[in-house]
């Protein structure tokens, strides 16, 4: 067993481009970007589409469902954690952590669901836990 417990998370510093994302996080919502020209979702979100470099984009709420694309268990960190890329149901992969789990049971391809974890004096952080 290698249970992953909550750990201290450095608070991000929202800027004018991303404050919508972190405001939504306060409400438990994961927002991602969507390019209105190509129809493709993207992550991390940004004001200009990474596919067209135009502002023809919108924020969309992610379903919160995804699968583990890859991960690494940091068992020797002062507060052990699992870093991962999760492939979101909407398509893009996002860098995140897998939490509330036994790290030894994790497998690539495993279904995971969104969960927010508090940061230190900042907005909550979108992470994932086995479905």
């Amino acid at each position, binding site marked *: 067993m290698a249970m992953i417990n909550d750990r201290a998370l450095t608070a991000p510093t929202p800027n004018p481009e991303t404050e919508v994302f972190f405001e939504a996080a306060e409400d438990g919502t994961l927002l991602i970007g969507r390019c209105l020209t190509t129809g493709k979702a993207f992550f991390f979100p940004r004001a200009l589409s990474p596919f067209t470099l135009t502002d023809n984009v919108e924020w969309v709420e992610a379903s919160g469902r995804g699968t583990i694309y890859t991960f*690494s268990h940091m068992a020797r960190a002062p507060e052990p954690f699992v870093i991962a890329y999760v492939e979101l149901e909407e398509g893009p992969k996002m860098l995140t952590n897998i939490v509330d789990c036994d790290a030894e049971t994790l497998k690539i391809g495993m279904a995971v669901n969104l969960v927010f974890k508090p940061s230190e004096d900042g907005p909550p952080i979108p992470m994932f836990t086995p479905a």
Partner: protein
Amino acid sequence: MTINGEAYIVGAFEHPTRKAPDKSLAQLHAECAAGAIADAGISKDDIDGYFCGGDSPGGVSSMADYMNLNLRHMDSTDAGGCSPLAHVSHAAQAIAAGKCNVALVTLAGRPRSEGLAIGTTPRLRDPLQPDAQFEFPMSLTTANGYAMVAARHMHEFGTTSEQLAWIKVAASHHAQHNPNAVLPKVVTVEDVVNSPIVASPLHRLDCCVISDGGGALIVTKPEIAKSLNRPLVKILGSGEAIKHQSGGYFDLTFSAAAAAGKAAFAEAGVTPADIKYASIYDSFTITVLVQIEDLGFCEKGKGGAFVADGNLISGVGKFPFNTDGGGLCNNHPANRGGMTKVIEAVRQLRGEAHPKVQVANCDIALAHGTGLQLGARHGGATLIMERE
């Protein structure tokens, strides 16, 4: 415009130190420069172009001032550890365009003396970089980013920890002949896979060393190169690429080496089969494996079998790599392995590598670097050189 045949590496120097608490960073850069100048047999005042990356204190202007250089061309491209390979390419381009005649490239750092736990501690390079607010709270470190590449490669292709371990084993076989190597002891596959996990699936011995030191290179035009009493190492081709997350659609099993290598081979007019010796960036064992595949030395996904059973050991296998012991065992100054990759390739082409690891008839060599974070966004730069 091509750089093929337009420039030569005439000076190469690797600082012998691996721990320098008694030296300043600027001093290390300058000592490296002096070493390369002496190796080339030129004068400091012949230098009219200077190239350095983010490891230089104060950048081009401060280091030009410290070394009292009189410059008409400069470049401080920074893409992490691959920067010196890009600098050599940019120097060759500048020389071909007549912007300078004699280019100096330096790299130095003292992470060992400064106690930087670079691999396992999250570092915020620039709080304004656009990914920072999404990624920094996740604690992406150097080690776990590369580890995620290894995990995915294992998942897709069945690559094993034992196969990765062979890369360290080969590097250690070379390092035993290098009196300056940080880790001169030969290790076994068992030693590697039994060392503690740093970031699963990578073990402590899958990682490179942390060392102080540096190196420098002198690049010049053909007329000057041929006037010097040094073996002629001609630059045949180069390539650069940045690979990143592409909006969230990416495949972690390949690297920027795929594009950089392709461009370098095209410019050089040679193929992977022509390469007698290769310096392959080795921040971690997985870095080597992915780049060997991407550069075309074996098929994608077959790197595990390719590196196993001593195939990377000079005199034993078919693909001698990093004969100085590489970053894995010898030296990884400034946490950037690109400089030492070029230097060992130059030694091999000159026939100046250690006799125990010198590759016979080494006429064409390749050096490739990967900079920054393989698991998120990184640079790749390739150089192909020929002994003339």
